[in-house]
């Protein structure tokens, strides 16, 4: 067991981080290059790029998002995203490990607060899964990837909670520790290659949607007119 743990928390972890960072960098570069090429080819080149860019960034602000159409869904998603962004980065235990590994450290969350966030994220994930099942459209549109990533995040958070609270953990510590590490590493490895890539690519998504309507000059305007939103970007 010692060897496996050693490998999983050593080389495999380094590899996962490297793929994560380099892979994201690559995706961003490729996206920008490809968007540029698409723009060059578009028949109609009046693309409100900076407006769209700001608009996508605006969705990060939860208040804006909650004003949308699916409030409950958005709320569940917000819970999950808050946990996903804050806990891995600011959990005291993680920061301590990073400090030991590469010597950098930063302020951390109080343990009680990160526990709360973790439980909230688990709740959010469960709600997301439920909503996905309940809604017919999401049920039919959902792919294997959607379910797999949902389950993966759930496992990573749950095992993380147990690693931090060995007393409430039903399984042997080493097992749950390995599950947590492997789950987290798999997420890191998958981010650049799955829909998780939106973590880095979300500012560009709208631009690429919009560009699609510009290949045939005037196509976008017709759609806007029939949606009753003339004058706005699609």
């Amino acid at each position, binding site marked *: *067991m*010692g060897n496996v743990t050693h490998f999983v928390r050593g*080389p495999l972890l*380094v*590899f996962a981080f*490297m*793929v994560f960072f*380099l*892979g994201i*960098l*690559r*995706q961003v*570069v*490729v*996206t920008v*290059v*490809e*968007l540029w*090429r*698409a723009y060059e*080819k578009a028949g109609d080149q009046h693309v409100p790029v900076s407006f769209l860019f700001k608009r996508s960034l605006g969705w990060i602000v939860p208040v804006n998002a909650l004003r949308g159409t699916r409030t409950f869904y958005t709320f569940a998603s917000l819970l999950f995203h808050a946990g996903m962004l804050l806990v891995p980065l600011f*959990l*005291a*235990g993680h920061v*301590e490990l990073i400090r030991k590994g590469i010597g950098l450290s930063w302020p*951390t969350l109080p*343990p009680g607060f990160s526990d709360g966030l973790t439980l909230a994220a688990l709740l959010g994930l469960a709600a997301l899964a439920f909503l996905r099942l309940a809604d017919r459209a999401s049920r039919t549109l959902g792919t294997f*990837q959607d379910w797999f990533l949902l389950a993966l995040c759930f496992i990573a958070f749950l095992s993380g909670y147990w690693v*931090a609270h*060995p007393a409430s*953990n039903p399984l*042997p*510590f080493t097992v749950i520790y390995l599950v947590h590490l492997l789950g987290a590493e798999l997420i890191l490895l998958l981010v650049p*290659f*799955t*829909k998780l*890539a*939106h973590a880095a*690519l979300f500012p*560009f*998504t709208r631009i*690429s*949607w919009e*560009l*699609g309507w510009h*290949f045939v000059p005037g196509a976008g305007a017709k759609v806007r007119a029939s949606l009753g939103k003339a004058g706005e970007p699609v």
Partner: protein
Amino acid sequence: MENRRIFVFKGILWFICGLAAAVAILRYAFGLGAATALSDTTPWGLWVGFDVMGGVALAAGGFVIAAIVHIFQKERYHAAARPAILTAFLGYGAVAVGLLFDLGLPWHIWHPIIFWNIHSALFEVAWCVMLYLTVLALELAPTILERTPFQRAYRFFSRLALPIMILGIMLSTLHQSSLGSLLLIMPFRVYPLWYSHLLPELFFVSAICLGLSMVMFESSITSWLYRRKPELDMLSGLAKIAAWALSFYLAFKLVDLFAQHKLGLMFAGTWESKLFLFEMLISTVLPIILYSLPAVRRSPTALWLTSLTSVLGFVLNRIDASGISQVWATRSFYFPAWTEFAISLGIVSACGLVFFFIQEHFPVDPHELETIERERATVEKSTPRFAPFTQVWLGEGWRKSLRVYSLLFVLAMAVGLTLAPKSEPAVDRPIQRARGADILRVGDGPRYVYFDHKRHQDDNGGKQSCVLCHHLHMAGDVGTPCSECHRGLYTPTNIFSHDRHVARLGGDASCVKCHGKRRPVDLAAVKKCSGCHEKDMMTKNPVVKVFDVRTACSYKDAMHKMCIPCHAKKASDPKLNKPNLGRCGACHNSGTESEKIYLAAFPPQPEEAARP
């Protein structure tokens, strides 16, 4: 559809480049010690042998073809001129890049421009590289400029072409041989079979042979990759010339060996002689025979294989001369670390990619370029798609290659950054467990100390004195030898096994026994080792009073910190009358009484006695 062959081939090159990029980062972050297997006795390894010596020699095709076409006026070979010059330019570029890795202080690479040391062979080499690289860039300029709007510059450089060409031939003649001069100044390092006063001339002649083979190799591999008909007429002509050049080299080498009375050495049966024969076989003898056969000259595949053999043979020659043939003098074993291979292959791959890029965008071979551009235009017209998950716009053709190549590059880089060593390997010797209780030989390697265990026990108060040194024992043991815990001669050892403690202390529920309930778990608050091991491992020792860390210091420190304080104190004891007991020589001394007793009991093994 894009050409599959070239697509796969470039993919491989990108992957290797990614690996090399990772190693390059680590080489600059952690230095040569971490990134190579080089040492003070073997400072020149694969990078000098392959990248520098080999790179220069591989580039010889440039001046050889230029001379054939422009001086001997053989227009038949004109088609090979531009690719050969491009190859030469890239070869020299590779030398410059390779040097940036191999130099200990790469940011001093410009020094030869300002600080002139005209007595140094390296000075000549440095200037030749700089000048010839410039000349090659000028020679390449017309090719790059031909289809650009800068027509005035194009005409200017085209008019300059002939004088520059001649300058280039002169310079590379100088330079090929100056690499030989570099080895000329180490007659006692280079093995006699490779060493000769005519090394510069031998290097020059062999560079011509290598250049010819390289042009053939490069021409046949590009025509295979781009699915174009090989220029068999030109190739077989070159093969004939190469056969003559190689024969001349062989004769030259043999006469030179004969004149130095070294012919016998070739068959001396040492591994150097076998290496030499092998090198001569694949670089010279085999290619001479094969190039002379009309059947081989008619078959592109056979020519490709033969030229590859010869190229490998001559690259081996450079590696032998600048590295392997010096091992007999330095007596140090050297085998390149994988990181060295990664950098060398990475530089070659990068050159290959630049070669393809220039080939595909500039009229190196105008006919070829047209075909490539026609293909590219059809690909451009295909319908675009969006990637399902990342919502990125995807095209066809080169955009597909952009994604695949960047993916390969990034993955290789991740692998490289994970696997490459992050620090210099610790130089350490395992400790030999001292034998017997009477006289112990403490330490390993050339520096032994003969420690009279019994006399120390008697002098310091009999059985009670054990604890003066034995401060710690394995649980349940007494008088555990120091080497059980202080395991490295120069590096500390971790004697604490987390897994075993978890098992012994009762599994998961026992975390709190050491780590308490505080969160996050950190090492500052953990229970001290002595908190549990006071009784079963520790003894009251005057030097090491505590036991609260898991690292046992190096063996050398353990000895020095234990032995010296007591010796220093006893040295001033008038009863003992040993005023020098506190000095190094008290222990690090040969011919002592203890040594004689020890050697009588344990006569040294023959191979030990032979050690210097």
